[in-house]
């Protein structure tokens, strides 16, 4: 599904990703953990095509297609989805109109018909319920005036609507209390399927109690310095990052 090889990327003159390799097969969930500032969000942004990063080496392919050849919207239409660490507020842009535009753009690129109003509405209500979100959310501007938890749930709601092949969840757990975390995790788990892969970026092991990963990677200083099964997360929880990061540096 996703194949990243030797990826290096700069912000300005500063090298943030320094040779990153990652292989994700269909249906797998990979957790990426690491200290603050290690480049997790940068990795997510570079994959989804945000401006301001310069890829200096390496490649990233989604089902064989070179992502770096594509515009952000083309990557999304190919099935890539990023749940933002900091969802952007869009005052004046109606949530429902936004979702419809997104869904129809993606469906159109797949050669599917646009949704009719009734089935679109039905689908939305169904997915909202899973995430314990109120219908009134649809009438509000995207993320505008949403609480922190609502913003994060809205990201997962969008993911549920857009049904991506590969979803990257960037610290979707941060700032959530335990109940909200459980709701988000349920939403994510409902979307697990043998065809859909996920990269769950998190700072804490806590989320992985609810979303069980197949693999755990540690990202530090722009490289994946350790990979393992879910027990690696527990080990990190217990010992912190120091022992690996320092061990690597030594």
């Amino acid at each position, binding site marked *: 599904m996703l194949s990243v090889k030797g990826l290096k990327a700069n912000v300005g003159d500063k090298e943030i990703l320094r040779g990153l390799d990652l292989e994700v097969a269909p249906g797998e969930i990979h957790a990426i953990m690491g200290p603050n500032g290690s480049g997790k969000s940068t990795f997510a942004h570079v994959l989804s095509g945000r401006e301001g990063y310069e890829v200096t080496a390496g490649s990233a392919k989604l089902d064989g297609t070179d992502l770096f050849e594509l515009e*952000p919207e083309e990557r999304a239409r190919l099935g890539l989805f990023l749940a933002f660490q900091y969802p952007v507020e869009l005052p004046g842009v109606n949530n429902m109109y936004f979702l419809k535009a997104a869904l129809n753009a993606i469906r159109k690129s797949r050669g599917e018909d646009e949704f009719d109003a009734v089935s679109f509405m039905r689908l939305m209500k169904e997915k909202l319920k899973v995430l314990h979100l109120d219908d009134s959310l649809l009438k509000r501007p995207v993320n505008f005036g949403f609480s922190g938890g609502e913003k994060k749930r809205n990201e997962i709601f969008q993911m549920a609507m857009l049904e991506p092949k590969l979803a990257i969840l960037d610290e979707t757990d941060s700032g959530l209390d335990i109940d909200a975390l459980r709701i988000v995790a349920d939403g994510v788990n409902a979307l697990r399927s043998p065809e859909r892969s996920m990269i769950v970026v998190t700072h804490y092991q806590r989320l992985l109690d609810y979303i069980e990963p197949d693999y755990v990677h540690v990202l530090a200083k722009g490289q994946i310095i350790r990979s393992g099964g879910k027990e690696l997360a527990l080990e990190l929880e217990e010992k912190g990052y120091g022992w690996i990061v320092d061990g690597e540096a030594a």
Partner: protein
Amino acid sequence: MSAATNSSRQQTEAAEAFAGWLHDLGEAASPAGTGVDAESAQGWLAAERQQAAERLRAQAVPTGKSESWRYTGLRSLIDQGFIQVDEPLSALTPEDIEEVLVPGLDAHRAVLVNGRYSASLSELGTLPRGVRVGSLSQMLESDPDALQGVLTRLAGEGSHLFAALNTAAMQDGLVLLLERGALLERPIEIIHLSVGMEEPRVAQPRHLISLGDGAQAQVIERYISLGDALYCTNSVLEIALGRDARLTHARLQQESPNAFHITSLYLSQDANSHYAGVNIGLGGIWARTDLVTRFSGEHAECDLQGLYLAGDKQLIDYHMDVRHGLPNCSSRERFKGILYGKGRAVFDGLVYVARDAQKTDAAMSNRNLILSENAEVDTKPQLEIYADDVKCSHGTTVGQIEPEALFYLRSRGISASLARRMLCLGFAGEIIDALDSEALRDYVTEQVGDRLERAPLD
């Protein structure tokens, strides 16, 4: 020759050309040459015209140096050599105007073609008690007394040049009179339809809106063209609100891309009255609007909002002059603009608070979204405050589309061009939402969306 002398000579030439043009128009507007009062020859109106013509002659012709025309050159206007519209145009049928109607808008409809009221295109329907609507020229014939002391009261002495020109030359327009307590439930829509003529013409409609104490009305005023005609509209509105009267006033300027547009709106508000105006400026190549507000009683509220879009070669200029001469009134000016291509806009708002106008509450803001390097806005909000117990604020912003917002939308599969349009409409939405008819909101949203779709937004 030095550059300075050169430019001052150019200014003199421009001033002369402008004076010549005004003179010619003024001549054409002499009482004998117009339809309004030639026959019935109301002395008072003839005198008003005379005075306006004299003011025109006496008034210094604006140059690039005069403050209120600093960013809005008059050269391109003068160069067109517009001449007065003389004959009413009668060839249009109701089918011709169907394409310019607002779908689903239920309103009493008054239609003016090239500045003249058209009875055959208008559909006034049944009007409630105490409401009079009709053509200015007809009312001047049938009931001139009703207009004496009212017409030209607000836009007479001290009005600006184009208003004086209108007074000297006005031929027709719409009169809307509500008696004390009258209530107009359906909105009244005034459509100014312009049709190109062989020579570039200027139409000078003159409107009078007067609401007696406690009266309420909703007016929708639209300027629209059939085709891409080159012409000029020089419109004047005098609006007087009695005590406790309420008027909501939507104004849509959707002139042809070659049109020149001038509106001078003079508003007078008595105690406790409420005026809510939403100005949407989309069309024309050169458009200037002056909104002038005065209070004649306390606790009156004046709300002026606006949205303008200026693209290639367009210039859109809003001037506001809000004068708080009495205590306890409030005013708000909130304008937003979207500039693209080589579009230019001017926002010049003056809120003046006299020494006695304590407890004035005034807020002015102008926010602009600039989508191209070549677009430009000159924004100048001014507060002049001589009272010490007031709440006044002003703010302006000039910004671009935020890259994070754009990326967020694109990361959801939405194309860059649609994403930009969505963000622009989001920005504009706050003003569009202030329109109080759903049909109108939908229509304006679509008009704005269409323009943005055609605009080079990259």
